[in-house]
């Protein structure tokens, strides 16, 4: 395999109001027309500023013993990831982001109105999840054609999978070059709304 770039039009992301409000802690029974309107207006603003993109590749892996996975970037010790990948010989690994302009938008909103900033934060989180879902679905269909199925995607920081894995994932996907997505010294990604994940192929 080799690196494949994936991009969708921001307006194609299905950023549901209900999901945005759920993320903000709303009780669905108490959502008003005005709440929906607020999300819709800010969603327009977010869509105008994001560039949803991803890069992925497909790799062979080995599971030499319980709790140990040989990833393309080296040996990983993680019971949780091991359980997730048991029975897989291959994985997809991807990195996805909605871009740096979103970070500026949040900053701008924080100065003008924290209420809007909180909603925009939730819209951004929903947007990057949706991007991951769309990519995930495409990969599922791709795998299905070959008679394979996919395991639920798994990210560094989930369960006992160390954040250190970000370094390895970055070394094989080169998201710095492909997405302008970078890893900070503290292993947090910049731009902020970004996701890396491993998906087992069975």
């Amino acid at each position, binding site marked *: *395999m*080799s*690196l*494949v*770039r994936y*991009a969708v039009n921001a307006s194609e992301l299905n950023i549901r109001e209900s999901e945005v*409000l759920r993320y*903000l*802690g*709303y*009780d669905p029974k*108490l959502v*008003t*027309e*005005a*709440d929906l309107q*607020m999300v819709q207006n800010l969603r327009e603003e977010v869509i105008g500023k994001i*560039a949803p993109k991803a890069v992925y590749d497909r790799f062979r892996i080995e599971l030499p013993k319980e709790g140990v996975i040989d990833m*393309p*970037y080296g040996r990983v010790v993680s019971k949780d990831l091991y359980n997730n990948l048991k029975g897989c010989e291959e994985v997809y690994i991807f990195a996805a982001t909605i*871009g*740096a*302009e979103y*970070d*500026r938008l*949040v*900053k*701008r909103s*924080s*100065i*003008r*109105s*924290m*209420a*809007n*900033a*909180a*909603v925009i*934060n939730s819209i951004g989180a929903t947007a990057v999840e949706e991007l991951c879902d769309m990519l995930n679905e495409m990969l599922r269909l791709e795998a299905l054609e070959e008679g394979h199925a996919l395991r639920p995607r798994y990210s560094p*920081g989930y369960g006992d999978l160390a*954040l250190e894995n970000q370094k390895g994932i*970055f*070394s*094989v996907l080169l998201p*710095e*070059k492909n*997405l*302008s997505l*970078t890893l*900070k*010294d*503290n*292993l*947090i990604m*910049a*731009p*902020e709304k970004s996701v890396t994940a491993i998906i087992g192929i069975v």
Partner: protein
Amino acid sequence: MKLSEKIKSGFTYFEGGCGTILQSKGLKPGELPETWNILHPDIITGMHYDYLTAGADIIKTNTFGANILKYAKDDEQFSLSGVIEAAIANAGEARVRAGREDAYIALDVGPLGKLLKPLGDMEFEKAVGIFAETVKIGAAAGADAVLIETMNDIYEAKAAVLAVKENCDLPIILTCAFDESGKLLTGADPVTVVTVAEALGVTAVGVNCSVGPRQMADVVKTMAEYASVPVVCCPNAGLPRVENGKTVFDVDPQDFAEAFEDIVKGGATILGGCCGTTPAHIKAMHDLTVGMEFSVPTTKTDSLISSYTHSVAVGDKTVLIGERINPTGKSKFKQALRDHNIDYILQEGLTQQDKKADVLDVNVGLPEIDEVAMMKEVVTELQAVTDLPLQIDTTNIEAMEQALRLYNGKAMVNSVNGKEEVMREVFPLVAKYGGLCVALTLDEGGIPDNAKDRVSIALKIVKRAADYGIQARDLIIDPLCMSISADPNSANVTLESLRLLRDEHGLNTVLGVSNISFGLPNRDLINGTFFAMAMQNGLSAAIMNPNSSEMMKAYYTHNALRALDENCMEYVDYAVNFVPDVKAPVQGGKTSDTAGASGEAKDKNAGADNEAPLVTAIRKGLKDRAAALTEEMIKTESSMDIIDGYLIPALDIVGKGFENKTIFLPQLLMSAEAANSAFAVIKETIAGNAEGDGDSKGKIIVATVKGDIHDIGKNIVKVLLENYGYDVYDLGKDVAPELIVETAIKEDIRLIGLSALMTTTVPAMEETIKQLRASGCPCRVVVGGAVMTKEYADMIGADKYCKDAMETVRYAEEVLQG
């Protein structure tokens, strides 16, 4: 022949891809390609040899990732200098073997893989330093030029170019990676890349990587239209795909070559390849293009400035430069500078952007503050929130240099004048960092009282600038306007100067428009008319207040009347939304507030039927109405009565709703913002009556701990605490424990709120608490954030864990009022 002469004498060819060739020779994923300079010099030399015999004139050394982040200085096997020196030796060897002593060796410099601050975590100066290490070694080892390539971010490109300029005299070629949208991943368009690159004095500018040759043609054409230096084009061989388990690129040498016909017609003169291209691609492309018509790039006359995304051309239509970021005559702004209230300054910038300013003037000079540090911070922070170009406005040369250096783009510089001493200080900075420089028509003899002499000073400045290599297009003349209250002929002289500068000398002009009315009542009336007259006489840019409706009226109507506003679109948009500056009646009447998330129908938190209007306004998050009502009430009620009788009760209703989960975060914050606007009215009245600064309920520090930059949660807590009448010291994000301790002691703080989002930053929180305890500061520490739990909080020695902002308010009440 020198490279700088060669590229003006005919087409010049770069090598093609390197990485894909090394992979085909066995380079493994994750293996560092630059180690092969030492491990397999034969393969590297062979690759250069093949490219040279295919027609390449410039070798790209195998040093794309050679920097101190990847290669330690003292590594025994692969030291940074070892890797770079070997790369250049291999290139030199290939040159000899191929009998191509006329070929050039370009030290190849790629991106660092780090996003610069404020969005990422790398300091601009650190990036300059890292590039400098690579450049020094390469220059000493005999490179003929430096190729800075595959840049996604114009800011990082600037760091790299500065590093080269400061460490050697080699020609600089800059190529950036544009994606399918025709922009860099960090947003810059092709014109902006050209503008910034030329401002920094590169020898050639262009595109590489990312897409295939056909998709690059448009970007190349746009760049060539604006560039005075040669344009480079090094595309990929299309996009990679997998065939029989091997990576192949979909553009073969013949297709690749044919696509270059459009690229050359579009104006590129330095040609080559990137990922997936081979010596066969370069040969086919070379053979097809070498006989095509070559033309030397012409010198362009566009006057451009840029931010990190887009450029603004100074030309026919007057550019609006917002003047509000300036302490002169503004007591609130001065106070914000003294209090280090950066948000206030940023807010001034954003408001002007909303009012359609094209550029923001930045002046933060105040005798009692460190202007250099403040200028650096404000320029950086402004560029984290706005994409407008900035005008650096200072007489402090050190502040000017630091701001121009840190600025992401090509700035305006305010200002130089005809005094020899000032030109000697300012022009070297403009020459080094680029910029469009405001030039005031005054000199050692003062300000001439007639247009002819002002124009003479302008011409003297233009001539002197040329000595520094600064072209007339990078100057914008300010013929100055003085108040007509002091000199009745003043406007006439200024207008005549504008006309002469435009008609006789083709120079761009700028004015601080409102100076014309100094000393007169209702100044905006004069300002608006004078602005229209100045535009009619050729004013290219105005330093003005975009909040002034008289000025904006003049601007839109003038443009519509002068056919500078296509189909009057901007005028119509302005006119249909035009609201005269009259305050709407408030008392008892209905105002037209539109904000507010809670609809009437499901308003389960409505108070009693006889609820006071101010309580309703706050509850519903109606900012403007809350402020207007407070303005009325303060005439008859004391400030404390309003706070205790309306604001706090309203917030309590909302706070209880939040705790009972009938009101949600955005609504809570909107109410907080409405209460804030009521507070602002009260504060202003108190300040006006000089009653002191009101009663504070206590002082609280909030901070996101070191290593963590997620500050949404912390900001939410801050807004709410302020609402409840606390003085909040917001130390920001990524805050060192030492600063928190120091502030706590200095300000005698009793409550500190710490926030962390990541598990990885919890240790920083623990360290902060440890240092606070060790200092003997008798404060309580409340912690919160996404990963925090009661257990964590206990473990790291916090006094309290709060799950949300309301709980933090309750805790503050308990600690500070109990």
